[in-house]
């Protein structure tokens, strides 16, 4: 049986990442990149909406996607640490997208073949979107990694900063339709081939503690949620 926690984990990864991606609008190096990152964030938001709606159905308590997005506190979020930390450096944003999209690509492909028909339908649509995210992250990783000394050093530093948060993606989740640990080899192979192609090296760092799947988060998630939720909480039911 698909669990509420499992669908929430998938939904919250997408939702929190979308919110971080939105930060880049008006701040990317060029208008064209503004639009690209906004498109990627909106793809993730669309995935989050479908997944949150389905999480509400699985839970069976009558909660809507908005209830779940706007009226939960950080301890009730199930996203990984990878997506919740600030990403105000373009290299960091690309390193993180490289990791997240590689993982989501494998995840959605497996879900599309999986036993839960609703998740399979959501995943089948998301697979194409994530393929583009993966492509975008790859192209920028190649250009920054194999660019100038400065861009190479910053891209390597970005990878070193994100790498401790890779393992948490494969942590077990009760009621998982696709056992996260089965995605590990293919995800890492995908990321590492791009890292090598970009003349960068795969970091050798200890994994962070993690704990997002159990509702344990960094201090950053609370700030992100304050930003994301304050309008809805201040004006319940507001629409435009």
């Amino acid at each position: 049986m698909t669990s509420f926690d499992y669908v929430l984990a998938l939904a919250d990864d997408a939702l929190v990442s979308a919110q971080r991606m939105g930060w880049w609008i008006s701040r990317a190096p060029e208008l064209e990149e503004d639009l690209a990152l906004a498109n990627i964030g909106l793809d993730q938001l669309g995935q989050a909406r479908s997944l949150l709606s389905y999480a509400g159905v699985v839970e069976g308590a009558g909660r809507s996607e908005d209830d779940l997005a706007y009226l939960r506190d950080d301890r009730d979020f199930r996203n990984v640490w990878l997506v919740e930390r600030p990403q105000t450096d373009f290299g960091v944003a690309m390193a993180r997208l490289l990791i997240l999209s590689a993982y989501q690509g494998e995840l959605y492909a497996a879900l599309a073949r999986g036993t839960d028909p609703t998740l399979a339908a959501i995943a089948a649509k998301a697979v194409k979107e994530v393929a583009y995210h993966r492509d975008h992250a790859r192209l920028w990783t190649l250009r920054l990694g194999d660019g100038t000394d400065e861009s190479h050093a910053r891209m390597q530093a970005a990878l070193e900063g994100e790498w401790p948060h890779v393992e948490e993606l494969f942590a077990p989740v009760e009621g998982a339709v696709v056992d996260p640990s089965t995605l590990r080899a293919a995800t890492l192979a995908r990321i590492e081939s791009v890292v090598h192609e970009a003349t960068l090296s795969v970091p050798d760092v200890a994994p962070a503690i993690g704990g997002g799947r159990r509702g344990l988060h960094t201090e950053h998630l609370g700030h992100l949620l304050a930003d994301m939720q304050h309008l809805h909480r201040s004006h319940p039911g507001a629409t435009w």
Partner: protein
Amino acid sequence: MSTAWPLWEVFVRSRRGLSHTHVGSLHAPDAELALRNARDVYTRRQEGVSLWVVPSSEIVASDPGERDAFFDPADDKVYRHPTFYDVPEGVEHL
């Protein structure tokens, strides 16, 4: 730094069977990213099924100052339009 990105012209084919049409321009560091940027900037509302990007510097344009010499001579050549000619009644397969 950002001003160093060259300009590219974007052409979109809106449907199969139609030709690519110029829709605008954008900045990108190279051809591969120009194509990606074109996808994001010009086809995010289902505007197209195919994209071309061309470096703006590669486009050879007619000189606005020579417009009269280039285009005016065509003004009084109405016989170049097929509608100038009357088709005699009874002609088949035309």
